[in-house]
């Protein structure tokens, strides 16, 4: 009798543990989205010679540590890939961002699409009808006295 209660309890315990890991903990750590495959984008862009590295620099914007993962620019479309990290359930990436061109023109603002977990998020900001032959862009945003601004040279592409 005592033994069977213990066994039942053991089953309940394991159900709670496995259920908790699969349903609650895993989704917080593994970003759930099959819409984005950034690594594949980068691989393809590298072999096409249209991938550019971002500056090795971290900037803080609303408590989120931002880095540029890369830029894909084919002379017409410009995609800026950004990673932002901050512990918390809210969004870790700037709501919106603009691109400043050397000509003084501004593209955007654009909001992002991407994936996020409890610690970090990665997203892409996409701009269309971009002038060809750009050698440098500035990617940034301001909001209520907080700002970030990355200077990204588009001089030398990174090949695979």
């Amino acid at each position, binding site marked *: 009798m005592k033994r069977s209660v213990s066994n039942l309890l*053991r089953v309940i*315990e394991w159900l709670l*543990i496995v259920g908790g890991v699969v349903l609650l*903990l895993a989704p917080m750590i593994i970003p759930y989205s099959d819409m984005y495959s950034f690594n594949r984008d980068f691989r393809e862009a590298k072999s096409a010679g249209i991938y550019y590295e971002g500056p090795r620099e971290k900037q803080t*914007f609303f408590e989120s540590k931002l880095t540029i993962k890369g830029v894909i620019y084919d002379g017409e479309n410009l995609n800026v890939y950004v990673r932002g990290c*901050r512990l*918390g*359930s*809210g*969004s870790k990436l700037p709501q919106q961002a603009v691109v400043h061109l050397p000509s003084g023109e501004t593209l955007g603002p654009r909001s992002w699409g991407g994936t996020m977990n409890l610690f970090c998020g990665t997203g892409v900001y996409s701009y269309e009808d971009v002038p060809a032959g750009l050698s440098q862009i500035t990617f940034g945003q301001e909001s209520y006295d907080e700002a970030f601004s990355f200077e990204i040279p588009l001089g030398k592409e990174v090949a695979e």
Partner: protein
Amino acid sequence: MKRAKGHIIRWAIIVVMGIIVLGAMTSFALTPERGIRESLLGMNLPVEVEAVSVIDAGGIHAVVFWDEKYQMYHHSFMKQVLGLFWEARGGGFGTKPQEEWQIKFGEGYSTQGSRAYHYVIGWINDHEVATVEVLWRDGTLEQMEPAMGRIIHFAREGEAGSSSWMVEELYAYDRNGNRLYTLDNMNYFAAAE
């Protein structure tokens, strides 16, 4: 004895997991200000705000936050998880009371299951106004003193799909009880002269 040890270890794991999940959901926010932080950061809004009006509308709280530095307010429905931790459940953010209106209000609602949470929010620039009164569509009257003398805030719980919780009219009175403004859904503001 050995069996008991296994149970204790498993329950310890379950409790730790529960704490992690609860922490991720609520950030263990013991105050409304702490509970709204994630929403504000996510929207790239400053987090130095103060809860100036908290209305208990049944299962949910309607909270208005004031940002003194940028002179704007946010409102959010908030749930108290386990009766302790404040968790935001959507709202409206970054409204700046503009000088061009003496008084202005808007209403909205949030449906959660079979319940609807209706709110009225607005602001007053006319310093004569001392109290605000709402006449709900079901005939009940409710009065409030504007938060900080300028923010109008009402919230009520009702049945989802029922219209009895909408605003019929909204009145503003001076210190002596004289009616200064009568507003409704069609005339929801009074312009400054």
